[in-house]
C-alpha cells in the first residue's frame, strides 16, 4: 500500500517538476531573432523611414503645420483640417497632437537600439553608431521643435538604465547639448571605416552622412538666431567649415515603396476624397510665387477641370496655366454664412458643372489651385524630403547676411533658389525643372542686398515657399516662428473649440498621456513653461 502510494507520488511529481529543462526553449519566440543573431543595421531603415512618416500626413504636419504656416488652405467646417486652417479642435485633435511625440521618440528608439546592440554585441561599428546617433538627433530635434521642453538627457533609457520616468529638459539645455554631441559625432565618421549596409538615405555613403551632419548642425544653429546668436554663429561657421551639402545630389530623402507597405503619408492622405477635393494652395503662397514670376507655379499647381466629378477625379490632370493659378485664403467654409468661401475677396467663382457629365454639379472651390496631382498625390511611393541643399544654402545666405564667416550671401541665395527649383524632379518627373532653366531663373532673381531686412525677407520667404512646396510643412512653420517670415494674418474663425485664441499656434501641446505616464515630470515641465498651450512660445521662439 505504502509502497504503491510512494511510487505513484514520486512518478507524478517527477513528471510535473523534472522536465522543465525544455522550458527555456519553449519560451523563446520562434518567429523573431534575439540580439545574438540580429544585425543592428536592419534597424536603420526603420528609424529613417519612421522619421519621414512622422513629419508627414495625419501625424500632424498636414493637419496642423501645413495650414498654420498657410502653405495650404481648406474651406470647410467642420473637418479635421479645421485644426490647421481654423485652429479649431476637430476630428481627433488629441490623437493628432500626440502623434509626433510618440512617433518621433519611437523612431529615435530604433536608432538608439542600434547603438545599444553594437555595445551589447561588442561590435566595432563606429560609422553605424554615429549615423544612428545622427538619426536619433534628427528625431529628438523634431520633438523639441514641436513641443519645447521635453525629455532629452534621460530619454530612451528604459531598457539600458531602467529610466521609466525621464525628466524634461529645458530646450535651452537641449539645443547646446545636441549641437555639441553632433559636432563630436560627425568627427568620428570615417569613409574607410565600417560599412553601413541598410541605409536607405545614402546607401551607406559616409561622406554624404558627414555633409548631412553639418547641414543638420546648420539648421539647428540657425534655430537659435533669436535667442542665442553667438552659439548660432559658432555652429553655423563650424558647419560651413566642415562642409555641408554641395549640390541637389546631396538632398536627404526617403524613397517610399508602396507595394511593400511603405507609403508616403502625405500622398495617401491627399488621396482621401475629402482631402483631394478640398485641400488647396494658400493665397499667400500663390501670391508670393506669382509675384516673382516663379516657374514653379505651373509645376506645383493646377486648376481642376470643371465641375464636381472632374474635380474629384484623381486621375484627371488640371490646368497648369500660370495666369489662372489662384491660392485660397485661409479661414473660410462652405456653409453659406458670413464665412462662406464665396464671400472671400477675390473669389474666382464656382467651377461650372461639366455638361458632358450627366448630373454633374458646380464645385464651389474648383477654381482654386490645388497641389498638382501628378506630382504629389498620385504615386504613393513619392519620396519624402528630410533636408535639402536648397534649405542649407538659404540658411547660409541668412548667416552670411548676418555677417558670419560662411561665404557670400548672394551666392548662397542663388544656389539655394536654383537648387530649390531642381528638387521637384526628385518627387516625380512631372516636377522636373531643367537645371538650365533653374539657373536662368536664379540669375534673373538675385538676392536683394539693398538692406539686411530686404535680404532676410527675401531669403526667408523663399525658405517658406521652398520647404512648403517640397511638403516639409514643419520646417516651413519652424522657420516662420524663427524668422517671422512670411508675415501671416491669423485666422479668426467664429465658433467654438478654438485652441489658440485667434493666434497662429507656435507649438503643439504635450500628449495627454504624459500626465498619467510621467506625471511628476510632466507637471514640473508645465509649471516651467507656464501654460501647456499652443500659443506658449518655446525658448528659441522668443518674441
Amino acid at each position, binding site marked *: *500500500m505504502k509502497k504503491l502510494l510512494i511510487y*505513484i507520488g514520486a512518478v*507524478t511529481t517527477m513528471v*510535473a517538476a523534472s522536465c*522543465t529543462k*525544455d*522550458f527555456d526553449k*519553449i*519560451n*523563446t*519566440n520562434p*518567429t*523573431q*531573432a*534575439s*540580439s545574438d543573431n540580429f544585425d543592428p543595421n*536592419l534597424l536603420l*531603415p526603420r528609424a529613417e*523611414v519612421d522619421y519621414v512618416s512622422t513629419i508627414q500626413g495625419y501625424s500632424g504636419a498636414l493637419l496642423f503645420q501645413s495650414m498654420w504656416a498657410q502653405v495650404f488652405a481648406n474651406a*470647410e467646417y467642420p*473637418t479635421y483640417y479645421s485644426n490647421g486652417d481654423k485652429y479649431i479642435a476637430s476630428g481627433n485633435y488629441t490623437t493628432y497632437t500626440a502623434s509626433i511625440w510618440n512617433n518621433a*521618440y519611437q523612431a*529615435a*528608439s*530604433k536608432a*538608439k537600439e542600434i547603438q545599444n546592440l553594437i555595445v551589447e554585441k561588442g561590435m566595432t561599428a563606429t560609422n553605424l553608431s554615429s549615423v544612428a546617433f545622427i538619426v536619433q538627433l534628427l528625431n529628438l530635434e523634431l520633438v523639441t521643435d514641436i513641443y519645447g521642453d521635453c*525629455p532629452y538627457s534621460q*530619454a*530612451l*533609457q*528604459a531598457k539600458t538604465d531602467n*529610466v*521609466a*520616468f525621464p525628466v524634461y529638459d529645458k530646450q535651452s539645455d537641449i539645443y547646446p547639448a545636441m549641437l555639441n554631441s553632433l559636432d563630436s559625432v560627425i568627427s568620428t565618421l570615417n569613409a574607410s571605416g565600417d560599412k553601413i549596409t*541598410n541605409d*536607405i538615405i545614402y546607401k551607406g555613403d559616409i561622406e554624404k552622412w558627414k555633409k548631412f551632419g553639418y547641414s543638420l548642425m546648420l539648421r539647428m544653429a540657425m534655430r537659435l538666431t533669436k535667442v542665442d546668436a553667438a552659439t548660432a554663429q559658432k555652429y553655423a561657421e563650424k558647419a560651413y567649415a566642415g562642409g555641408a551639402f554641395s549640390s541637389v545630389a546631396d538632398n536627404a530623402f526617403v524613397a*517610399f*515603396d*508602396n*507595394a511593400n*507597405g511603405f507609403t508616403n503619408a502625405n500622398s495617401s492622405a491627399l*488621396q482621401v*476624397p*475629402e482631402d483631394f477635393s478640398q485641400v488647396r494652395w494658400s493665397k499667400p503662397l500663390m501670391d508670393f510665387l506669382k509675384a516673382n514670376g516663379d516657374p514653379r507655379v505651373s509645376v506645383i499647381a493646377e486648376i481642376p477641370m470643371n465641375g464636381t466629378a472632374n474635380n474629384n*477625379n*484623381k*486621375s484627371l490632370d488640371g490646368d497648369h496655366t500660370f495666369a489662372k493659378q489662384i491660392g485660397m485664403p485661409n479661414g473660410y*467654409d*462652405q*456653409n*453659406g454664412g458670413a464665412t462662406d468661401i464665396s464671400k472671400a475677396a477675390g473669389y474666382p467663382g464656382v467651377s461650372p458643372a461639366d455638361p458632358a457629365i450627366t448630373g454633374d*454639379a458646380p464645385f*464651389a472651390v474648383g477654381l482654386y489651385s490645388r497641389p498638382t*496631382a501628378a506630382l504629389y498625390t498620385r504615386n504613393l511611393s513619392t519620396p519624402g524630403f528630410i533636408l535639402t541643399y536648397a534649405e542649407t544654402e538659404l540658411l547660409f545666405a541668412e548667416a552670411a547676411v548676418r555677417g558670419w564667416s560662411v561665404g557670400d550671401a548672394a551666392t548662397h541665395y542663388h544656389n539655394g533658389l536654383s537648387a530649390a527649383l531642381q528638387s521637384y524632379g526628385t518627387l516625380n518627373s512631372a516636377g522636373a525643372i531643367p537645371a538650365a532653366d533653374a539657373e536662368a531663373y536664379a540669375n534673373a532673381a538675385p538676392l536683394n542686398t539693398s538692406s539686411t531686412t530686404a535680404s532676410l525677407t527675401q531669403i526667408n520667404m523663399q525658405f517658406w515657399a521652398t520647404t512648403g512646396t517640397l511638403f516639409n510643412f514643419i520646417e516651413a512653420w519652424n522657420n516662420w516662428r524663427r524668422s517671422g517670415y512670411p508675415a501671416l494674418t491669423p485666422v479668426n474663425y467664429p465658433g467654438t*473649440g478654438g485652441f489658440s485664441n485667434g493666434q497662429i499656434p507656435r507649438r503643439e501641446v504635450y*500628449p495627454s498621456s504624459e*500626465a*498619467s*505616464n*510621467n506625471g511628476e515630470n510632466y507637471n514640473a515641465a508645465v509649471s516651467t513653461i507656464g501654460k501647456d498651450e499652443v500659443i506658449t512660445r518655446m525658448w528659441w521662439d522668443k518674441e
Partner: protein
Amino acid sequence: MKKYPPPQLFILLLVFLFSSLKIFAQTRPLTGVVKDSANQPLVAATVSVKGSNVSTTTAADGSFTLAVPSGNITLEVTYVGYNPVTVPVSPDQADVSVMMQAGSNTISDVVVTALGIRKDERKLGYSISTVKGDQLTKARETNVALSLSGQVAGLKVTGTSGGPGGTARILLRGMPSMNSGGSPLFVINGVPMDNSNRGSAGEWGGADAGDGIGNINPDDIETMTVLKGQAASALYGARASNGVILITTKTGSKGTANIEYNLNYVTDKPIDYTDYQYEYGQGQNGEKPLTAAAALGTNRLGWGAPLDGSQVIGYDGNQYAYNPYHNNFTNFYRNGYTLTNTLSVSGGGDNGSYRVSASGLNNDNVTLNSGISRKTVNLNLNQNVTKKLNVSVIANYIDQQDRNREYLSDGPGNPNNFQFLASNVNNEIFKPGANPDGSEIVFSDDNYVTNPWFVVNNWINNTGRKRLIGSLSAKYNFTDWIYAMARVGYDHENDDYKNVTPTGTSYSYNSAGQSGSISQSNAQTTELNLDGIVGINHSITHNISFNATLGANLRKNDFQSIGVSGGPFVIPYLYTPGNVVSFGRSYGETHREVHSAYYSVEFSYRDLLTLSTTGRYDAFSTLYNSGIPKEDRNIFTPSVSGSFVFSQLLNSSILSFGKLRASYAQTSGEPANAYQTAVYYSVGNSINGTPTGSFSSTLPNLFLKPFTKTEYEVGADLKFFNNRLGADIAWYTQETRNEIMNGSLSASTGYTSRVVANGSVQNKGLEVALTGTPVKGRNFTWDISLNYTHVQNKILKTDEAGNNVGLGTYRPLNANTAFVVGLPGPQILAHDFTYNDKGQVLVDASGLPIQNTALTPMGGVLPTNYGGLNNSFTYKNFNLSFLIDYNYGNKILSATSYYSIYRGLNKLTLIGRQDGITTGYDDNGNANTVAASAQAYYQRLATISKINVLDGDYIKLRQVTLSYTLSEEMLKKVPVIRTVQLSLVGRNLFYFMKNSENIDPEAGFNASINYAGIEGTSLPSTRTFGINVNIKFKN
C-alpha cells in the same frame, strides 16, 4: 488496511471531543450495505438509528457497521440526491441491505467540484453554486455565459453590444486581477477549454469576434458549477485565480434509448433608448444649411433652426422637408431571430451509457446581412470495459460561422453611424449606400464615417470556427477504495477570418481609381491537458473517512496563425488577396507549457466535520528564459478548508441544516502572454529591396515571477423549516501580489509600454443567496430565490511609482479608465469644470466653461452591489418564472452622451437655443454677463467629460418563462410522444429603473476589463421573445 499508520493527532482529538457527546447505552453490532437501484454501492450514505444519536456513514463499498441499542429499532438512511429510507430492524437481525431510490427530496446535493470530483455539498469548506441546464435553455442566449446573469451570487456577466456572437465579460468576485480579462477558467467535463477573445473593438473601432464559451450549445449542458473562491478552485492552480466554472454535459443513463427534441425560436427586437430633441434640425449656429456642402457637413449636427416644415437643401442638392423624422432607428435595424434545433439520443446498459446530440442554430442579427450559423455535435460515451476499468469518451464538435460581425465604436465600417443623425434627416436618403458607379455615398463631413447602408450591403467581416473539444479518460479501480485515472483533454480551434473593405469605400481610393482592401487569415489554437490522478476513499474508522487525491497535469498551449492582406483591388469586386496592388503578410506562433503536481486530502468525521487541504506545484514555461533563479519561477500554493455541520448537534425543529465553513487558499498565475522575459527583434518588409528590422514597443521584463492570489473565506449554509427556507452566506477577502501586466510608458523612454510585475489588487465581498418555498401545496408551489453580492475592490499597487495604469478610452478622447492606487478599478478619469476660489464654475471671456486640464477620478465602472431575484410559480402543469436582476454602484463613460451633446441632439441642448446661455463666474467671483451661443456652449460642455459620466444603476426584468408540460400520464394514449413541454419565453425585457439617459446601462463595445464601462456607437440592445418546445419520445 489494518497496517495504517495511526490517524493524525488532531483527528484523534476531534474524535475524542465529539465522542463525548454520544449516548452510551447497551448496544449490539449491526452490519449492512447501502446500494442504489442499479445495485451500485453508495459511499458515505448516513445511517442512523431513529430517536438516538447513533449514526455512521457507509464505506466505499457501501457497507457499514453500527453499534445499535438492543431491541427493535428503526434505521434511517439518507444520501444526497436520494430519497431517505427508513428500515425497521428486529432485535435478532445481524445485517441489513438497504436500497435507495434517486430522488429530489433531499437535504443537500452532490456537487461537482474541482477536477470533476463529486462531493457532498455539505462537506465543502467553501462556496460554490450550481446552475442546472434547464435554466439556460428556455429563454436562451446564443452565448450561454450570458444566461448566468443574475443567477449566482458573486458572479457578474455582461455582454457586448456586438450582437449575439459577441463576447461575455464574466467576473467572479469582482475584478479578480488587473492583468487578465477576468474570465474564469471554463472546464468542460474535466477538460479546460479556451475562452479567449478572438478580437474586439477599441476606441478606434474594430469588431467583437466572440469568445470560446459562446460556442457551446446550451442544450448539451447538464449543470454549470461556479467555483467562486480560491479554495474551491485551488486544484486548478495557475488558472484558478479568476475562479472556475465547470460545465458537465448530459450523459445517458441506464435503460432504453431516450430520444429528445428541442426547438427554440426567438426574435430579437432592437430597442432605442434615446430620447433626443426633435425641435431643432440640422445646421449650425441656429441656421439651417444653405448649400449642399453645408448639408453634408451638418447631417450629424443638430444646431440648426427650429423645425418648421419648410424646405431644406440636402447633401445631394435636393430639397427636403425640415420636419422631425422619427423612424431612423426602425428604418435601419430589423428584428433579428434565432432558431435552434437539437436532437439527442441517450441510453445505457449494464456496463455503459451513451448520449449523442446534434444541434443547429441559425441567427439573423439586427443589421442586414449579419448573423450566425452554428452546428454542434456532442458525443458522450461511458463504458465499464472490465469490472475495474471504466473508459469514457467525450467529444464536442462545433462549426460556427459568423457573417459580417459589426464594427463598433469610432472607426470605419461601423453600421451604427446613423445613431447621430440630426433630427430632420431621414437615413433612407443615403440608400442604398453606393452610387451607380459603385462608389460609396458619403453622408457626412468625414470619409472615415462610413455610410451604414454601404456597410451592411457591401462590407465583409466574417469569422469561422471549427472546434473540437474532446477527452478520453480511463479509470481503474484497484480496490473498492483506491483508483487511478488518466485523462487526455484536447481543445482545438481552427479559426478563419476574412474582412474586406469593399470596392467603392470612400476613404480607400487611390489616384488610379482603385479602392478597397482585404485581410484573410487562419489561426490554429490548441490546448492539450494530460492528467494522471490517484484517488483514495477510505473509512479509517466508522466515523472518520479519509479521501485523498494525488495528481499531475501537463498542459500545452500552441497557437499559430498566418495571414495575407492587401489593397486596393486591381479588378473591382474580386475579393481575394491575390487581386491587390500592394500586399502584406502576418505570421504568429506561440508555445507554452505548464507542468504541475497536486494533492488533495480530506478527513471527515461523520457528516459533522470535514477538513481538507490541497496543494499544487506549478512550473510555467512563460517564466523561463529569464533572468531570475529557477526556484523563483516555480511555485507551490496551498489551501486549507473546513466545514462544521453544527445542526447535527442541535436537533432543532426550525433549523433543518446548518453548516459553518472557513477556508484559506492561495493560487498562482503566469504572464498572459509567452515571450515576455526577453528582447526580440523582427524582420519586416523590405523597402525598395532593403530589408528592415524592428522590435516591440513593449519593453519585456527579465525578472518575472509567478503572481499569487490569497483568499480567506468564511461562510454559512443554513436551511430552515424542513428546507423551505435556505440561506447561503459567504464573506471573503482576497489579495493579489506581483501581478504581471502591461504598464504604459511615456514614449520618451523609448517604449510605449512595459511589462511590470508589481501589481496588487484587493477584493472584499459578501455573498448571500436566499432560497425559499413560501407556498407548497398539492397543485401550487411558489419557489423564490434571491441573491445579493457586495464587492469592494481596491487597487493596492500598480508600478513602482504608483502611476495610474491607463486602460480604455472612448473616441472623443477626453476621458479614460485607469487603475488608480487606492480606488476601485477600473476608475473613470474625466475632466471637471474649472472653479474659482469660491467653488463657482469659471468661464472664459466668451462665456464658455473652462475644462480643468487635470483628470479627476469619477468612480469605478464595476458594480459594487448586484444580484438577482428568481420567482417560480408552479400550478399543476403550468410553470411561470421570472428573473429580475439589479446592479448598483458603477459609472459609465458614455460616448453617446458626448456626441449627443456635441451634435445638439441631447434634450439638454434645448436650453438657450434662442438667447444663448449666460452662466458662470470670472476669477473674481463676478457673475459672467457674456452670452455664449447654444452651439458654442454645449460643444464646450461636451469636452468637460464629467458630463459624460453616467450612473450605471439598474433593475431589470431579465427573463420570463411560461411553461406548460404535457406529462407522461396525460400522453399515455398518444403514440410516440412521451412528454411535451411548451414554453413562452422573454429575455432582457425592460428596466424597472435605470439612471443613464439615452443609453442602455449594460451597453459596451468591448468585453475586456480595459473597456468595461465605456460605451458608444455600437449595436442597439435587443428584447427577446420566443418559444421553446421540448419533446421526449417513447421508445
